[in-house]
């Protein structure tokens, strides 16, 4: 949200205004910078909203918006020190309730987080759900996310980091090679149903992303951590490209490109009016590609390189061959 000011629509700006006022009341005196940091908006957005506040209010007895009917601030503090102090309050005294949609999104989010160790304190969660119900105008809409069992490995990573030790685990990569890895866990990240660990890998001496479901036999070591998430700049994307990546060209129905959006590296070029499109894709090795292609059977057709086409062919052919033998 911090950077996407274009994404910040009128309803967001309105919500920000009605949220900013109670925050300013609560703080009494607060800097523009601190306010921006707290709400994860830009300082300009804060200044604009404060300026808007000072011309906002109620029609008042004269129905003409007299100065007493408007919000006011300590102007010297604002203009000289970039600090906000409200000196005249209008109508709003406290934080607004959540809408039924907002509450539903939060509840569904909490349900999604069920595999985190933080989530395992059931009393905390039940209390939070009751509070959200009371904090909402109307009834949260019927939205539910099935809970997943708490991920044991994440608990161990968390424990290791809070005690300051490295962890070790067996990791099976997509090529089918199993290795014992020793890492400094930095971040747990998820995308839909898949969970990943981003960590400093002492074997590779580099940042690595591990799929949780390929990790087994986790143990906490007695070697102290060498890297902390606060000191390491992590690339935004989970699947960071490297120089060894292989460029693949594929063809697929244009309507299906959303299914694999995170892998695509170029714009889709339509093939006449067939509804098909050609697009580039980057993979770290062909073992991952053949799995991807087979998970969307009939959709993805690999065009090049020829080596990739052959590998996909072999993978499917070997698989189907088993059925004629058994």
């Amino acid at each position: 949200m911090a950077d996407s000011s274009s994404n910040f629509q009128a309803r967001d700006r309105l919500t920000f205004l009605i949220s900013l006022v109670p925050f300013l009341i609560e703080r009494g005196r607060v800097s523009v910078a601190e306010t921006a940091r707290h709400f994860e908006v830009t300082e300009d957005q804060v200044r604009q909203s404060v300026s808007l506040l000072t011309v906002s209010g109620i029609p008042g007895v004269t129905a003409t918006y007299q100065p007493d009917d408007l919000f006011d601030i300590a102007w010297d503090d604002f203009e000289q020190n970039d600090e906000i102090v409200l000196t005249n309050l209008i109508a709003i005294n406290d934080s607004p309730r959540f809408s039924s949609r907002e509450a539903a999104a939060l509840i569904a989010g909490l349900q999604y987080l069920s595999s985190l160790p933080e989530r395992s304190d059931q009393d905390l969660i039940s209390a939070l759900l009751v509070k959200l119900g009371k904090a909402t105008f109307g009834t949260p809409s019927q939205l539910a996310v099935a809970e997943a069992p708490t991920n044991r490995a994440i608990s161990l990573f968390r424990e290791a980091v809070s005690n300051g030790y490295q962890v070790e685990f067996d990791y099976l990569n997509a090529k089918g090679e199993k290795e014992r890895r020793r890492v400094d866990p930095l971040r747990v990240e998820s995308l839909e149903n898949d969970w990943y660990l981003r960590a400093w890998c002492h074997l590779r001496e580099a940042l690595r992303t591990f799929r949780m479901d390929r990790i087994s036999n986790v143990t906490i070591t007695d070697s102290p951590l060498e890297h902390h998430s606060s000191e390491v700049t992590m690339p935004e994307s989970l699947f960071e490209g490297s120089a060894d990546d292989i460029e693949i060209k594929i063809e697929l129905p244009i309507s299906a490109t959303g299914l694999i959006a995170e892998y695509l590296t170029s714009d889709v070029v339509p093939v006449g009016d067939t509804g098909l499109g050609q697009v580039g894709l980057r993979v770290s090795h062909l073992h991952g590609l053949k799995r991807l292609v087979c998970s969307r059977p009939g959709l993805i057709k690999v065009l090049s390189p020829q080596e990739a086409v052959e590998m996909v062919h072999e993978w499917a052919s070997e698989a189907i061959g088993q059925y004629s033998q058994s």
Partner: protein
Amino acid sequence: MSDRKANSRVPVEERLFSLILALLATRNGLTKSEILSTVHGYSQKYSPSGDNSALERQFQRDKDDIRELGVPLETFEPLGEEGNNQSTRYRILPAEYELPRDIRFSRQEASLLNLAALVWREGALSGESRRALLKFKSLGVEIADPVLDYIPRSIVREPSFEPLREALEKNLVTEFDYFKPGETESTHRQVLPLALIQFQGRWHLYAMDANSQERKTFLLRRIVSEIATGSKVIAPPREDSADVGLKELQAVWDRNLAQIRVQPGTDAEVRLLQQQGAKRLDNGLIELHFVDLHILADELAAYGPEVLVESPSELREQVKARLAEVLKLHPVSTGQANGR
């Protein structure tokens, strides 16, 4: 204020903010004509003698908009004046607008809510999450620094999600074409949406057939048409539909079992065994639960020769058919021109 009058182009949020302030500040409510003639954003366009119908329509939309944002805008008719449209009054009761005083969040709760809002930061639900976060930050609670960084993320990609949720909120009868695997054509459905449920990572619609009243579950991914909603409203059954729908999906999942032979030491073995409910049988096979046979078939096809489906036979056939399709698109030796 004359300088206000001069500028008749007031941004939406400024008009809505002024409306909220005016309605919060009034104890006895304001009539529509009082609002249109005095509240900033409307008064600039108000004509005391002329036609204000465009402005009235705008006020209608604005009312809906701020209600959707969780502002309890209330309409009432003063005693003795019932039935007179002109006397309808509008107000926002502070006690219903404000978060109750006893609802405050601890640092620990705040951290969890913050994460919960981050889950949906892309795709559908992102707007709601963003606004929920702003409101909740208005309380000024600082978030506890996590021991381990978490970046949870789930993206609702199905285009039918938004219109279905809208219909769900308004109890609107909804129509769409649904493609059931194994059938050659999609069929037209007319249902009352009851809940949207994510189960095993996929969004489902739990709904009631508008004619037979029968409950049905649809996978959003298989809705192949636009969602059409009319104005027909049906009162939903009085039950926790999300919970009932979830239990039905769970029952299907409990019932559906597949037995898979996996090559030891492979990706398939490691990952399939980590699936919820997966079990290694005495004969070495892995037993899996599933909701949708066709989706499991997609997933198993990806493992190629690492897996061999033993049962059910329908799953076996579906995996074979998928592999055959991949082969058809990837012929070797004949080059790239063939296949599709």
